[in-house]
């Protein structure tokens, strides 16, 4: 089975994240880049499926040169090879433009299954799986916390408001995963050494036949009008419990008319 896992490099959630003041896109210099946490679960699921059904796991990333670090990390978890779409023209692409560009890149790769995270920690749009399925014209099995493949049939548990849905489709398909699905592995020393030699194919937008007029900040379908730090929350009242803690909260709630 040919499995493609989408991996996005994002600023480390633990560091201060910013948008640039000039074009209001992500300030990548301000924080360290790491693999989007949820994508580690997607990689793990790809690897588990490969271990069970055979085949290959290809990492697909769209992003600037620095994203190479995340690609190597993904390869050192055990993926076989990678495709890196990188082009100045992609800078500032919004969620749907990214979905379009990734769908073009996927058009060059033979896949049975595309696995991705259910959202990224920076943009948090959560639309990628759905938008990709739409562009590719393949079934969407998103928000999965369990995936089973049997021949050409795929079945997932899709998390819902009330519990979950069982969803079934035929391959090829797009699957997005939530963090309940597995426990991502740590790269072993041996795999880290091997990862250095694994092939990473670089694609420009011309290579991937991505229409330049449909990507990039200048053609974005949405515009960030302004950016400002959130007004600081007024410092709260913090008291130590000396036997009256619960009563004190009740007084606060009464003052705010909650009780």
């Amino acid at each position, binding site marked *: 089975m040919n499995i493609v896992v989408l991996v996005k490099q994002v600023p480390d*959630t633990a560091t201060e*994240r*910013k*948008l640039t003041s000039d074009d209001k896109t992500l300030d990548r210099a301000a924080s360290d880049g790491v693999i989007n946490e949820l994508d580690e679960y997607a990689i793990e699921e790809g690897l588990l499926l490969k271990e069970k059904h055979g085949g290959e796991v290809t990492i697909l990333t769209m992003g600037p040169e620095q994203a190479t670090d995340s690609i190597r990390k993904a390869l050192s978890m055990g993926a076989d090879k990678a495709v890196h779409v990188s082009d100045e023209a992609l800078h500032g692409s919004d969620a*749907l433009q990214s*979905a379009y560009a990734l769908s073009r890149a996927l058009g060059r790769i033979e896949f049975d299954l595309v696995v991705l995270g259910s959202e990224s920690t920076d943009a*948090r*749009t*959560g*639309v*990628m799986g*759905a*938008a990709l*399925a*739409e*562009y590719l014209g*393949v*079934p*969407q099995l*998103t928000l999965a*916390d369990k995936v089973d493949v049997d021949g050409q049939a795929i079945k997932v548990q*899709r998390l819902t408001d*009330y*519990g*979950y*849905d*069982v*969803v*079934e489709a*035929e391959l090829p*398909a797009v699957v997005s995963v*939530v*963090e309940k699905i597995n426990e991502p592995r740590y790269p072993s020393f041996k795999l880290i050494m091997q990862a250095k030699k694994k092939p990473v194919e670089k694609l420009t937008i011309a290579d991937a036949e991505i229409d330049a007029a449909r990507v990039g900040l200048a053609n974005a*379908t*949405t*515009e*960030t*009008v302004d*950016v*400002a*730090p959130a007004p600081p*929350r*007024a410092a*709260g*009242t*913090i*008291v*130590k*419990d000396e036997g009256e*803690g*619960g*009563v*004190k*909260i*009740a007084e606060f*709630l*009464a003052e*705010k008319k*909650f*009780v």
Partner: protein
Amino acid sequence: MAEVLVLVDHVDGEVKKVTTELLTAARRLGEPAAVWIGEGADTGSAKLAEYGAEKVYVAPAEFNDYVVAPAAELLAKLAGDASAAAVLVSATPENKEVAGRTAVKLGSGVLTDAVDVSAEGVTEHSIFGGGTITHAKVTSGVPVIAVRPNSVPAEESPAAGAREEVSLELSDAAKGAKVTDRVVQEKGARPELTEAAIVVSGGRGVGSDDFSVVESLADSLGAAVGASRAAVDSGWYPNQFQVGQTGKTVSPNLYVALGISGAIQHRAGMQTSKNIVAVNKDPEAPIFELADFGVIGDLHKVAPQLTEEISKRK
């Protein structure tokens, strides 16, 4: 005035609060037209009309048998036919997916997790775990916007609520992913997490799967119960109650955090709450940076006392 489509969230005919909020926001942009998928429109339409729906489009329940794509096909068709001014959905994980697919079909832009929408269609967003506020707008096509529950206060404004059946032959592509079973996990009498005006959440500090200390306080306040990922991963509370980046995003008037440290991923799901109360025995816990009122102490002492005090004051 151009129509503004609002995708209705409902459970068996009962319209969710977020839909009344979306109808209120829709009135700023044009004439609200509700889009109902499935059974129950007979009972639900009255409420939609009360909050400003001039029209209620009704699509067959069959649309719910497949994942996301049918709703997108429906919204894209209606938006095209009516030259809609905008499409609004609630910012649930599922509806954000609907928004994404609808926008691809319409060739428009999509904005998710808006916490406000102006008459000009400018949206407000709270990003990076609440640390940054941005404003944005869709610059191509019919704007498709997913709005967070509890962002726009619902206001009544009676309208016609004229029902219109939609006939639409779903494409084969929309039927690719079929729902073969729905599993409803236990749901108590408590309000739903994303809709609730008050949420009381418990974390690792609760210490065991006996969540009654959290539930009792929640019940005394008429609140929903939430949990941190640590509590969910420990198997103390079901998954669908997780608050945070990879759980539910809540924005209630009051959020009470019991034994939760306030990790960035937790904050991402609750930081826009209007009032935050925290109980934690560690004075250094980051949750206190957010708290309007915090008590440094043992939640197993403080919470029961609070529950009792609230009952006394009723």
